[in-house]
């Protein structure tokens, strides 16, 4: 009888159930799948550290041991671009279009500098040191992992540039701020995963063979 007492004639009010927009959920899931992808490549890299049966070994060719500042310099350019893009989004939220354009362009330039740095490093390794995919396990792992990261940076730069052009044409406003924000989430992921790649390739992977 206690149940009958609690019965009511009309149902409780039905509330809207969404906390996150589909776009945000989608980009989070996409980043999760990217992490699974990079996680696999990173596991493979860690698995093969120190298993080369012929040189050149990482400590002979990686710039971090020859010229540590150069790689650090590049990485810092990529990492600070995350800060610039955060400034850009903040400016867009406040409706300051000019500041948005400035910080967004700075992000693109910093990302491009990182790619140029990677290109110079690869040129040195391929042409001067003669290390390529088929040289040894280090070559296979290095170009795959760093290459896929650079590929993601390139894709990110294309999208960033597209957004900048759209903004210059006047298509970016506070109405579609979420879409621009989601692009910046992807850029933060590309930067964040570089920290992991950097530690794996240039720190853990750089120890002399036992």
């Amino acid at each position: 009888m206690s149940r009958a007492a609690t019965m009511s004639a009309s149902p409780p009010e039905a509330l809207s159930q969404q906390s996150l927009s589909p776009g945000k959920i989608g980009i989070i899931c996409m980043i999760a799948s990217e992490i699974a992808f990079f996680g696999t490549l990173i596991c493979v890299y860690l698995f093969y550290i120190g298993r080369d049966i012929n040189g050149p070994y990482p400590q002979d060719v990686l710039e971090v041991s020859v010229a540590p500042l150069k790689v650090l310099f590049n990485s810092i350019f990529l990492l600070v671009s995350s800060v610039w893009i955060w400034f850009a989004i903040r400016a867009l939220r406040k409706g300051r279009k000019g500041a948005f354009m400035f910080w967004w362009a700075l992000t693109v330039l910093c990302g491009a500098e990182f790619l140029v740095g990677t290109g110079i490093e690869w040129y040195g390794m391929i042409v001067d040191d003669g290390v390529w995919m088929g040289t040894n396990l280090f070559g296979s792992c290095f170009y795959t992992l760093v290459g896929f990261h650079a590929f993601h940076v390139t894709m990110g730069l294309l999208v960033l540039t597209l957004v900048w052009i759209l903004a210059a044409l006047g298509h970016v406003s506070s109405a579609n701020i979420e879409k621009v924000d989601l692009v910046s989430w992807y850029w933060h992921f590309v930067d964040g995963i570089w920290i992991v790649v950097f530690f794996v390739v240039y720190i853990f992977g750089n120890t002399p063979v036992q």
Partner: protein
Amino acid sequence: MSVLQPPAGPRTTEGPVPFLSRLHEWVATTDHKKLGVMYVTSGIIFLIIAGLEATMMRWQLAWPGQDVVGPEEFNRLFTMHGTTMVFFVGMPVLLGSANFLIPLMIGARDLAFPRLNAFGFWLFLFGGLLLYFSYFGGQGLYGMGSAPDVGWFAYAPLTERTFSRGHSTDYWILGIFVAGIGSTATGINMIATILGMRCRGMSLMKMPLFVWIMLVDCFLIVIALPPLAAAQILLLFDRQLGAHFFDAQAGGSALLWQNLFWFFGHPEVYILILPAFAFVSEIIPVFSRKVIFGYPLMVAATVAIGFISLGVWVHHMFAVGLSPLINVIFMGSTMLVGVPTGIKMFNWVATMVGGRIRLQTPMLFSLGFLCQFLLGGLTGIFLATVPFDWQVSDSYFVVGHFHYVLFGGLLFAILAAIYYWFPKVTGRMMSERIGTWQFWLLIIGFNLTFGPMHVSGMLGMPRRIYTYQLDRGWELWNLLSSIGVIFQLLAFALLVWNLLRSVFKGREAGDDPWDAWTLEWSTTSPPPAYNFDEEPVVHSRRPLWDLKHPDDPDWRYE
């Protein structure tokens, strides 16, 4: 309350539309229902192709020393059969049914990203075509093409350039890679739809179980498919750029491929079987006239299966010779997955207990699923035990086991789902009489084919051999297996006939032919392009029950 009433008035009838514009409408569509139909239709076509490949193999193995196909062709047949069934039958049917049903079940008008959805479908379809193009281009288009012959798990180093000349393995890599990107995109799309687009009142714990299970399934897709893509890229780099990932002579490791593949491969079999759970979790309550027993526990069991399935992959590698500790750990985790699965079995049975069971075709196939999946699950527990696995690893016992799970389990559930939702998709009923014939023919054929495989496996018959000698004692069991195929062929011929006939001549179904309770039955059959006139509002897990029984609605008890 009136928002759930179907829109009145007759279905709009149009004049004959020219073929080209109808084709254009389907090719350019972003409608989740049309894409769902295309997914399932192409899945059924691939099912027929892969089934005929299996028929060739059973013909070859019916007697000792047969000469229907040679050893090379036999290798191609089992490779293409397995690859097709997993990636181009199981995946499209699950993504297609999720596509069609999820927006309808949660009261949405489409998926979150309709164009991404169309993109995913076309990637899947062209991935499948790329795989089958290898029959023409596998050796490099010299007119002497051939398909991949490396098995569906493509163990390195046999896939390396040294051992696999030509391009057949590259087609295997690229076909699955392309389809995998499409599946991942669709998985992301589903999660965003389920989490972000439910109608008013539908909290997570008021979602139909189908939607819950598909949500977990799509999380598994998003996490498990990218590692396969990565592994395939490594293999492609080995073959095309001379890298050494799986090249033992340069320090590479064949074991790494096994780990990477099965880290994807075992979640993948749960990705395939979870939709089967989703189908029967909707069908059994409707045909027992009771609510599902233990809804919260079903949700918890689904999530538990999702988590555990990510940590069991080494049970495919017990015979490799890893350390006893690793074997024992993965034996334990594999046995653990039996617990939530067992909970589900008991809940389905408990749903039927005391219900007024209607033995129509969807329920028949669901019962077939329950019985045969149980057998497959039990042999799975056997195989999880390391010493037993060592005895029968890579034997026909394993073949029998996973066909009981994927054919007896998944395919029977898919057939149940086809019979159950066909009226909603087309507006017409399928023939019950043909369906019942198909069911019994398939039950006989299925058990006749795959039951004896357990025996021949115990007698030592290895899988993937193209013939065997007379004195091994395997003849009877192989003959029985091959005879079963005849029944199965008849059953699938009946299915195709039933489908084609019912599309044009089936009885008009009406909106709600099964007297069901979830939102998809509240709209017309087939549903209009916009699904619902107004956004539905739900108050319980069975919104249509509330509507049909305003004197005793469910929301009083939940």
